[in-house]
């Protein structure tokens, strides 16, 4: 029998950005919060002396080990899904801070178009513009409604940035000025200006100057040391839950962090959650943590898996399109990371060993509905980007096509070109399809015998259209920047787990938000329609994946959920949003 713990107001499953935000906001409001984290506790002391590329970049030392569990993958329903076995191919966060420790720090807002993508597309181009099988839908919230929460997240994280020409509108400027511009960034800016585009620097959580956030937490100025994405920042200069929301929660005295605690089920009676069941991974002991509110704040895969394992909500059926749990799974890096071109420069060497995770520049003339799509065979779009994260000498071995990838000529040319190449890529959106989804694997289990989550997902024709549109823009940019040899990646036939860009770090959907329980799992407070004291927070709520990176949107939604939870606790429960067209399937 599991040991019964004392009931608390709120329990979170996972303590990264979203769990940290929920914990900080509710503990500040005086509620008792327990955060269950299956990894260990990380503090900024762990980041000192950690500029170790083999440990953190090659062996991804800050990420979840696959020794006990993983995700299974197949391109389509005709295949048997197999486990992703190598941890370098499934880079999900673990320990306190979650993915918020090792992120690069790009902090984008999605566009007003994203939140109303279905209705705006139909209004402007007609229903036939949406390809068959593409299951885009409105998010049940508008950009204007979400804007104050974006602002909250940016203030908490101290984001550095400058406004672009196309918006979206902001209630406040970025809390800190943009990062400095490296020479390749100035080349990009000049080239984009020459081509008539509108360049600006990436909004960054590696911040430009020392900043104290509204909770009193300090984030220091970025040193451009390049040990950023995949690392914890030893200067505390990358905004991270470990130096912001988690200590904020701890300082209230109302937050209890329990690490090494692996939640295996959500417990409930009827349509009310009662708590969670978890295993202490150090002792093997099982506990029940009762709570008034249960909040899933794990990564997309685990949020969805816990719902399915606990048999909460209607599982999605790809044949009929009915049911919601597992629906609209998308992956961002899958389609977009290969959409890149490399330029080799014979007469110019660049300081590529310097950089920061979100140091870079972009133009966004071809994203969202910023341009007319009447003659395009796709909707939405992407952003052309140069990013200077800092070159890792183990992987910075670029050589022009036709060069062997080992031996004398390889060594010679890889050394010669090590500081003479720049990559430009096209970061684009990822759309949901009826046959792309998550469910429980029929064969493979974790070490406890529970089924793994199974992913059925592949490159779509829409992705191919965007790839081909974007890759020409990347080539155009490198030509204007003066590259001597320009090599665009070739389109991939289908997703491959071992292609290095497809590492499932930006996965979304499976418990999506919307304005009706027929088509969504949660409402716009991320409250389950079917269980009103259960909230499912994170990119699992995204009905599609916008063009840029997800963290700010997940963070904004977490602030919105925190507000909803507080309202729920104050007002004695109930759904926070009126259902539309409830015609529940039996």
């Amino acid at each position: 029998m599991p040991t019964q713990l004392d009931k608390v107001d709120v329990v979170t499953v996972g303590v990264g950005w979203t769990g940290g935000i929920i914990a900080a906001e509710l503990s500040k409001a005086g509620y008792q919060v327990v955060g269950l984290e299956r990894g260990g506790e990380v503090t900024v002391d762990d980041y000192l002396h950690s500029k170790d590329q083999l440990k953190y970049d090659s062996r991804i030392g800050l990420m979840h080990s696959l020794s006990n569990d993983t995700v299974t993958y197949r391109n389509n329903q005709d295949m048997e899904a197999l486990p992703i076995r190598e941890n370098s191919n499934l880079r999900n966060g673990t320990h306190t801070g979650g993915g918020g420790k090792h992120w690069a720090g790009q902090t984008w807002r999605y566009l007003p178009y994203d939140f109303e993508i279905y209705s705006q597309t139909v209004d402007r181009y007609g229903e036939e513009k949406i390809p068959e099988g593409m299951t885009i839908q409105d998010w049940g919230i508008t950009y204007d409604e979400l804007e104050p929460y974006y602002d909250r997240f940016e203030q908490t994280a101290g984001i550095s940035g400058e406004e672009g020409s196309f918006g979206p509108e902001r209630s406040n400027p970025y809390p800190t000025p943009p990062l400095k511009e490296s020479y390749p960034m100035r080349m990009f800016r000049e080239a984009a200006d020459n081509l008539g585009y509108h360049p600006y620097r990436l909004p960054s959580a590696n911040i430009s100057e020392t900043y104290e956030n509204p909770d009193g937490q300090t984030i220091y100025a970025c040193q451009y040391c390049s040990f950023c994405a995949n690392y914890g920042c030893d200067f505390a200069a990358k905004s991270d839950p470990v130096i912001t929301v988690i200590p904020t929660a701890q300082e209230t005295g109302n937050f209890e962090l329990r690490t090494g605690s692996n939640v295996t089920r959500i417990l409930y009676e009827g349509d009310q959650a009662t708590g969670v069941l978890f295993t202490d991974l150090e002792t093997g002991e099982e506990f029940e943590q009762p709570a008034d509110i249960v909040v899933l704040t794990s990564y997309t895969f685990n949020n969805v898996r816990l719902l399915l394992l606990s048999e909460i909500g209607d599982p999605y059926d790809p044949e009929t399109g009915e049911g919601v749990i597992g629906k609209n799974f998308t992956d961002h890096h899958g389609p977009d990371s290969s959409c890149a071109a490399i330029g080799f420069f014979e007469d110019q060497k660049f300081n590529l060993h310097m950089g920061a995770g979100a140091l870079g520049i972009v133009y966004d003339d071809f994203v969202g509905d910023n341009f007319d799509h009447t003659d395009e065979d796709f909707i939405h779009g992407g952003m052309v980007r140069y990013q200077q994260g800092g070159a890792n000498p183990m992987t910075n071995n670029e050589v022009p096509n036709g060069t062997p990838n080992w031996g004398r000529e390889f060594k010679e040319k890889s050394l010669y070109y090590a500081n003479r190449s720049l990559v430009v890529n096209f970061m684009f959106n990822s759309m949901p399809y009826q046959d792309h989804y998550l469910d429980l694997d029929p064969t493979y289990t974790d070490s406890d015998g529970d089924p793994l989550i199974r992913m059925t997902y592949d490159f779509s024709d829409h992705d191919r259209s965007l790839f081909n549109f974007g890759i020409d823009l990347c080539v155009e940019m490198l030509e204007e920047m003066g590259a001597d040899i320009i090599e665009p990646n070739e389109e991939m036939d289908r997703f491959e787990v071992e292609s290095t860009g497809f590492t499932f770090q930006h996965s979304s959907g499976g418990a999506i938000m919307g304005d009706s329980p027929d088509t969504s799992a949660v409402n716009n407070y991320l409250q389950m329609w079917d269980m009103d004291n259960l909230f499912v927070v994170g990119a699992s709520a995204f009905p599609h994946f916008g063009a840029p990176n997800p963290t700010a949107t997940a963070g904004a939604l977490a602030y919105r959920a925190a507000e909803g939870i507080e309202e729920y606790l104050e007002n004695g429960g109930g759904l926070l949003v009126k259902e539309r067209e409830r015609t529940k399937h039996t």
Partner: protein
Amino acid sequence: MADNNNTDNNTNGDSGISRRTFIKNTGLVTGGIVGGGLLGGILGNQWQTGTQTDTGGATDEEGDTNRVDEARMFFTRDADFNVLSAATERIFPEDDNGPGAIGLGVPYFIDRQLAGSWGDNIHEYMQGPFSQGEDSQGFQSALTRGQIFLQGVRQINEVSQDGFGEAFADLEEEQQNEILSAFEDGEVDMRGVTSPTFFNMLLQGTLQGAYSDPLYGGNRNMDGWRMKEYPGPVMSYMNEIEEEEFIVMDPISISDHHTN
């Protein structure tokens, strides 16, 4: 919520994504590389004078009689380790730019990596059932990396004996390259793993040994970094990040962080 800088990754040599080429200046491509001269000008002298030895250019620590960096943890048979050493040297050979894999300590780096969690696949999902699946589904072997390396180096020697009647380490460079190419191209049948999978591990392991922090036993004397003009884990570029000119710095390593 991770957001790794995917632009760093997506054009790696091992990405499996092929590229088309738009050549603006064909002369520079077909005319080859002037690089040997450039880097050789900076580094050439220290390799061509003094310390050149039959270990492939390793720089000896003066008077150090307790060379723990040349003791093995994983490979028990000399013959296996000799194959590994010769194979890594073919992948990353000594030349005018500087030392090759042997001189950089790469074989000992790989030995240590195989003796630890990486070689034992500690962080990999290793539960069955095992099925090869389709290429898109990635690595599916039931073997650990340690087992794959042992099988691989022994098979390299078998192919060498069968084809040339000699041990791999005793072959000419071109013969060694021919055998390694056969593994790379999938022309050798291995058990429980494909030969390109093994070859790719060997290739990645060699590059990691050449360029990882010296604390792991490779990149001796930071010479891998010197050849690449990579300065190691410098604490701050706050004052240099905007510079247009390329800046060459004498490298430091993690041990400098701990001792300073």
